[in-house]
């Protein structure tokens, strides 16, 4: 190896290490900070010297963080389930059947996924008020559909389209109804696409802030992002950074675990939705 090549290799390795450090450090530092409380917190430390769990105890006893987590879970689970059920039906129609207006419909769906949330805020507020769902979890679930349904339809349609054509022809000759066809033939084949799509929808709903911050502000209906954003301590001077970091770690760890376990599938799902789309 020539010296120039060696230098290049070293430079490349250093660059990669720098990128990895940049990506991981903020979360690592949040974990370290979450184990420090009181005045300790105000002396920055790069290593956790001991495990002080007071911040974690505090968010579950002095704050209703357990409740917030349950709220977020309920909203995200309902939104994922509804998006997948509706999405599979729509994807069958858009991906397997030729009819007039299909291209326009796909474009509309794609267009909705590009809506700025603020643009539907006042209209949604009125709708949720009229349905009597203001400050409730169902209202929030409804609002979140605007974020998750379009890309669920889009990704599943792309995936459906790639499946071999002979699949439904045989079934149709046998006289199977479309519902049976979707249930028996397509659903088993769709799992590889539904897992990452559902996971992406879950992350979107779990992270959603603006709707939750506008439509469900009371302590009972508050979701995790709103709770973290509003977390404040006894004194109004300084934010309670210890509990905030503990709460951040609690809500982030499950998502990171899911993402790392499913990383190949998520990457594939993201790509199906965006690059081919």
């Amino acid at each position, binding site marked *: 190896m020539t010296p120039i090549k060696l230098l290049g290799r070293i430079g490349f390795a250093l660059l990669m290490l720098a990128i990895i450090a940049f990506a991981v450090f903020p979360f690592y530092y949040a974990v370290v900070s979450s184990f420090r409380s009181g005045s300790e917190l105000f002396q920055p430390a790069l290593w956790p010297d001991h495990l002080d769990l007071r911040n974690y105890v505090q968010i579950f006893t002095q704050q209703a963080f357990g409740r917030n987590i349950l709220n977020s879970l309920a909203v995200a689970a309902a939104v994922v389930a509804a998006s997948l059920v509706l999405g599979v039906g729509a994807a069958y129609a858009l991906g397997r059947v030729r009819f007039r207006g299909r291209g326009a419909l796909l474009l509309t769906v794609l267009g909705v996924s590009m809506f700025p949330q603020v643009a539907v805020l*006042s209209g949604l507020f009125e709708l949720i008020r009229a349905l009597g769902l203001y400050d409730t979890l169902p209202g929030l679930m409804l609002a979140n559909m605007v974020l998750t349904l379009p890309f669920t339809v889009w990704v599943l349609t792309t995936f459906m389209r790639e499946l071999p054509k002979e699949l439904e022809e045989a079934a149709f000759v046998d006289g199977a109804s479309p519902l049976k066809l979707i249930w028996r033939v397509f659903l088993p084949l769709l799992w590889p696409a539904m897992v990452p799509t559902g996971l992406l929808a879950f992350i979107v709903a779990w992270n959603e802030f*603006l709707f939750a911050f506008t439509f469900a502000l009371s302590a009972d209906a508050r979701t995790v992002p709103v709770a973290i954003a509003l977390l404040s301590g006894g004194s109004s001077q300084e934010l309670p950074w210890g509990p905030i970091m503990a709460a951040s770690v609690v809500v982030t760890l499950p998502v990171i675990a899911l993402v*790392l376990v499913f990383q190949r599938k998520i990457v594939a799902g993201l790509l199906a939705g965006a690059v081919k789309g």
Partner: protein
Amino acid sequence: MTGRSLARTRVRAAWTFLAPTLIVLAAVAGWPLLRTVWFGFTDADLSDISRYRFIGLANYLEFDNGEWYGVLADAQWWGAVWRTLWFALVSVSLETVLGMVVALALNVRFPLRGVLRAAILIPWAIPTVVSAKMWGWMLNDQFGVINHLLMSLHLIAQPVAWTASPDLAMWAVIVVDVWKATPFMALLILAALQMLPADCYEAGRVDGIHPVRMFFQVTLPLIRPALVVAVIFRALDALRVFDLIYVLTSNSNSTMSMSVYARQQLVDFQEVGYGSAASTLLFLVIVMLTMSALVLTRFRVDGESRT
């Protein structure tokens, strides 16, 4: 069953399966958008949204007693517009370049590849509100680790108020956005790279063409369509930025984006009419920018063939 009636049954079934999705999308997206546009022409108020008057274009622009009123006459709105455009331009450019570096790295075999891929997924998975808080803590002026490190390295003499000072706060927002969104960009570019034919690289290597030249003359043109999609996706995200700015810089005027401005009018000031006018303008700005991007790049979105 004849072929024709079979086709007709299938089309009817297709519409039946589409209907629920279309109804939900119409209810949560189409109708609210129309109502927002309508509210923009009224004096609706959040405390009682059912009582309002039609006031024409007064929310947008009105001349009264020798002075101009309305969103279009509000210097703060225009500040928010330019700031958002500038933010989108800077952060998406940085994310594209960095994302390209990460994608090119992930596309070759090297010992740290698995670690790198796992590591870049972490910022992407973290909720925006949480990342804003994490960075807010790291950038804290008194106790933040970044000031601490920079001071112990003698790069700065005094703690810097990263998120509070008007000159720096926007840069803090950009750093966090780049940190969070680069993984998305990198993954999209990586997918495009992996679909490239290997043989032209083989030919290039045999001919002794420099890798950098290969990159600009072969790779870049080939992945351009995918790059355009990724940039448009990210730009749309950046143009509607809300959570990050709202949580990181706590609703300050010096970092206000279009979305933050509209929400403040709508919710904090309860001015549904005025806020809806601002939301409508934001929507129009985004539609126009998307359209011109699509036209400029001659990009075809027809749902069938891909460019």
